[in-house]
């Protein structure tokens, strides 16, 4: 059995019972909508609070000293990261799932490429900026903080930075692997 018509009829004879009926699908769709609105609101609230805390912190710090420079770098990196995540989310949101397949494929490939860039080099830059910002502030901490507290911060960082980096790299590698896999499937290979 290898004629195309035979294969076609065999294919079309496959049967499958759906997991849910139409009413359940409608209920799921409505629930997803509610969840999405809640998530959206939670995201906006979290971002607003974070931005507010960072800006307040930055404003109350005296200018022209290492703490201000360090904080500016750290806050800058964090704000850029947040803005890029928002941009990435908006790009994904704009992709029209009812588009013709060739256009959708291009849009989703472009989105995944953007995610790949975001996960790889931009995350690395943000982490380096974050560490540099903190390192700039260390001499001030040494002068102003009690000795034990200064060493507590240093030791905490020595342990904390590699640990955070490990988890960050692990998560990034997993996402990059997934993205590479999807991109390779989406790319035309004739």
């Amino acid at each position, binding site marked *: *059995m*290898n004629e*195309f018509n035979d*294969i*076609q009829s*065999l*294919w*079309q*004879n*496959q*049967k*499958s019972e*759906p*997991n*849910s*009926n*139409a*009413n359940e*699908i*409608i209920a*799921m*769709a409505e629930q*997803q*909508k509610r969840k999405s609105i809640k998530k959206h609101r939670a995201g906006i609230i979290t971002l607003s609070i974070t931005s507010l805390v960072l800006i307040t912190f930055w404003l109350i710090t005296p200018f022209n000293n290492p703490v201000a420079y360090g904080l500016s770098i750290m806050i800058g990196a964090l704000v850029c990261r947040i803005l890029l995540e928002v941009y990435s989310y908006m790009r994904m949101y704009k992709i029209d*799932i*009812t*588009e*013709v*397949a*060739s*256009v*959708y*494929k291009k849009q*989703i490939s472009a989105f995944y490429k953007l995610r790949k860039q975001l996960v790889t080099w931009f995350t690395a830059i943000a982490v380096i900026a974050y560490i540099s910002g903190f390192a700039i502030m260390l001499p001030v901490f040494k002068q102003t903080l009690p000795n034990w507290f200064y060493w507590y911060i240093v030791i905490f960082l020595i342990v904390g930075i590699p640990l955070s980096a490990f988890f960050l790299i692990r998560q990034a590698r997993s996402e990059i692997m*997934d*993205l590479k*896999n*999807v991109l390779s*499937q*989406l*790319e*035309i*290979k*004739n």
Partner: protein
Amino acid sequence: MAYFANPIIPKLTMSTKDEFELIYQAYYPKVFRLCSGYASGRDDWAKETAQDVFITVWNKLDTLKDQKALAAWIYRIAFNTCMKRLKENKGRTDLSHQLIETAYSPEQQSEANEMIQKIHRALAHVSVDEKNLILLMLEGLENDDISDILGISRSHLRVKMHRTRQKLKTLLEDERI
């Protein structure tokens, strides 16, 4: 435009829920087969994806302007949902343990299952573009409708169909697959 041998759902005097119910009944098997073609026959992934497709259909039903374009619209959503969910389709299934239910007699069932499994394995060896085309050809859609769903010109489609059909034939004849 030869708009499909597929049912066109009448909108007049019908509530959106009733309309959706009819669409769901009419298109679920087609959408499921399409999703299963993407999932190397993985039933669970195909069912979840088909479910996602109909959630989108429900959410976007009011944006569909031309009722005659319903089938093309659903197929587009189905393909795009499959592409979107490729990231979650990590596992490859050992199809030898999975029996696919068909409308054939028990005697023909074994041969039918073997062939269906072979088609799924062959689909795993083609690009997404070729897969989309093969799945629409297997569903028996007209050329005009296929080009409308995939967004490629009629002349380009004819060339692609010929090449893809040849490739599928070669893959199905390959004993290693």
